């Protein structure tokens, strides 16, 4: 009896997923677009682009953690290596920015496929350790590989002309390109979450043995979401390389992996819009506290502790509870 009702509810969820976005989500996306269009007239564009890149990075990470239930502690590997490849493509190969971003993103996808297919062989806490260890391997590789420039990184990456036409030298022009990339990425993530594929992912997250017994090839779904998440993290990383014209070891360091976990946690795991809020908060905090050195680390640590102990739903999670609608 219960089985029947549950199939029915899943059926309804799938139907809803196919019916399109609920109205309040449309409203939020429109508000985000409007805010994105107005913001560069009020705030410093480079700061805003940093927020956008990290928002996309955090949303990509949240796709894996919040919807796939897989905690990767090594997402800096995809963000950082994409950043290196995009920078190298733009600077040494002389590719145009869209191709540079594409090659960085592809590199992250390949890396995600390689690491993901090994990591999904272990579950739970081991999965986190395996991803962290592989990310550290990527870090050591970036430290020693000849093309990454070691401690200096790849500096003075040219932004070039978009499609050979539009010069991206001005921060203002680049901002709108980054805005388009980020919103495109967010809509794609939204689509993935609310597709039948996303529903199966949720089923696996909630009860893996049951999903297996229903005949789903769980490992394929896990690998697919892992690669998607790595690819989108790579898109964020490549874009970041063009924005700052720099790819460096910071992007592949484990502390970067920690930061993206923190953004997702503070904004709300498993919410569509939470990681955006989290990214905005953490990037703003880093900007204001940049001169205080190690205090940034201490405050980030304190936020981790407070979030885990008292505030596990995150900001958007709490709001979603208030208004009783998923966000």
């Amino acid at each position, binding site marked *: 009896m219960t089985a029947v009702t549950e199939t029915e509810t899943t059926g309804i969820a799938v139907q809803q997923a196919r019916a399109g976005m609920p109205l309040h989500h449309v409203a939020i996306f429109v508000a985000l677009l409007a805010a994105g269009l107005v913001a560069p007239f009020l705030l410093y564009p480079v700061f805003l682009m940093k927020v956008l890149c990290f928002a996309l990075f955090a949303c990509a990470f949240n796709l894996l953690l919040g919807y796939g239930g897989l905690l990767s502690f090594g997402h800096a590997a995809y963000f950082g290596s994409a950043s290196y490849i995009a920078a190298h493509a733009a600077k040494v190969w002389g590719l145009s920015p869209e191709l540079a971003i594409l090659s960085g993103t592809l590199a992250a996808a390949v890396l995600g496929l390689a690491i993901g297919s090994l990591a999904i062989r272990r579950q739970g806490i081991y999965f986190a350790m395996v991803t962290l260890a592989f990310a550290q*391997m990527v870090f*050591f590789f970036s430290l020693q590989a000849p093309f990454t420039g070691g401690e200096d990184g790849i500096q003075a990456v040219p932004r070039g002309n978009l499609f050979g036409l539009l010069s991206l030298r001005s921060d203002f022009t680049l901002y709108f390109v980054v805005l388009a990339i980020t919103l495109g990425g967010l809509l794609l993530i939204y689509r993935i979450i609310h597709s039948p594929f996303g529903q199966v992912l949720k089923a696996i997250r909630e009860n893996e043995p049951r999903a297996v017994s229903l005949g789903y090839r769980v490992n394929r779904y896990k690998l697919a979401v892992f690669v998607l998440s790595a690819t989108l993290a790579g898109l964020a990383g490549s874009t970041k390389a063009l924005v700052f014209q720099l790819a460096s070891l910071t992007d592949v360091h*484990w502390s970067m992996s920690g930061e993206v976990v923190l953004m997702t946690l503070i904004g709300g795991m498993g919410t569509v819009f939470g990681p955006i809020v989290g990214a905005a908060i953490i990037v703003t905090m880093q900007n204001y506290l940049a001169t205080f050195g190690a205090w940034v680390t201490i405050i980030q640590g304190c936020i*981790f*502790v407070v979030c885990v102990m008292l505030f596990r739903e995150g900001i958007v999670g709490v709001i979603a509870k208030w208004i009783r609608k998923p966000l």
Partner: protein
Amino acid sequence: MFELLGIPPQALFGQLLLGLINGSFYAILSLGLAIIFGLLNIINFTHGAQYMLGAFVAWMLLTYFGVPYWGALLLAPVLVGIKGVIIERLLISRLYHLDHLYGLLLTFGLALIIQGLLRNQYGISGLPYAIPPQLSGGQNLGFMFLPNYRAWVVVASLVVCLATWFVIEKTRLGAYLRAATENPTLVGAFGINVPRMITLTYGFGVALAAFAGVLAAPIYAVNPNMGADLIIVVFAVVVIGGMGSILGAIVTGFGLGLVEGLTKVFYPEASSVIIFVIMAIVLLVKPAGLFGRTA
């Protein structure tokens, strides 16, 4: 003078010794992680910070209170262990009913706080800690020069690891511990205070990490970042060995240290990634780990 595959014996045995020392730290740290994971079901990300704290407390005891190495070797693990007990009681114990990942995130945050505070106070350049006078100098073994202190580190770690193994596998206390790992509710029903046992186990695991930190202090400079990079390698060691067996953790730790040392001799470029490569191979061949039980 004989040569082995074109490598002078001093270099070969020197690196092997260094590998054995790193292996001792891998063994002690992964042992602590395994014990804590067994009973608390969390991965203690703070383990690296607690190892670093052990070295720092030893340095502080010497600098501010004049406590020599031997005093610190006993006192630092106790102090850091007490700090661990406080953290377990105040914070970690409130998370047992939740998903594993919250324990990992909490201890990661704690590690950031500890590292950040020490970096603020002492910088990242590293503080020197002298080798105790009783252990300075070394032995000439003919084929290599063996510094006394390094020999002591290997012997002390082995003794501590084997003692831990003995307590857990062969004593009544260890039997309670293993039983509580299997089924805490049942053990509690027999009148054993499981929450207190959990707290003390965490304290003991942390004290082990601090002990390794004190041993490391005279070899590596005392530095706020010394634990962060080490703990990630130790995670790989734990994945390779599997956390099911105490003896397995010890053997894997020492073994991987040796392999790393050998790589430094024959192919130095790969020495920093060799353990991760081994981890990839183990995941392909035997996903549960060399000594792991499939869940």
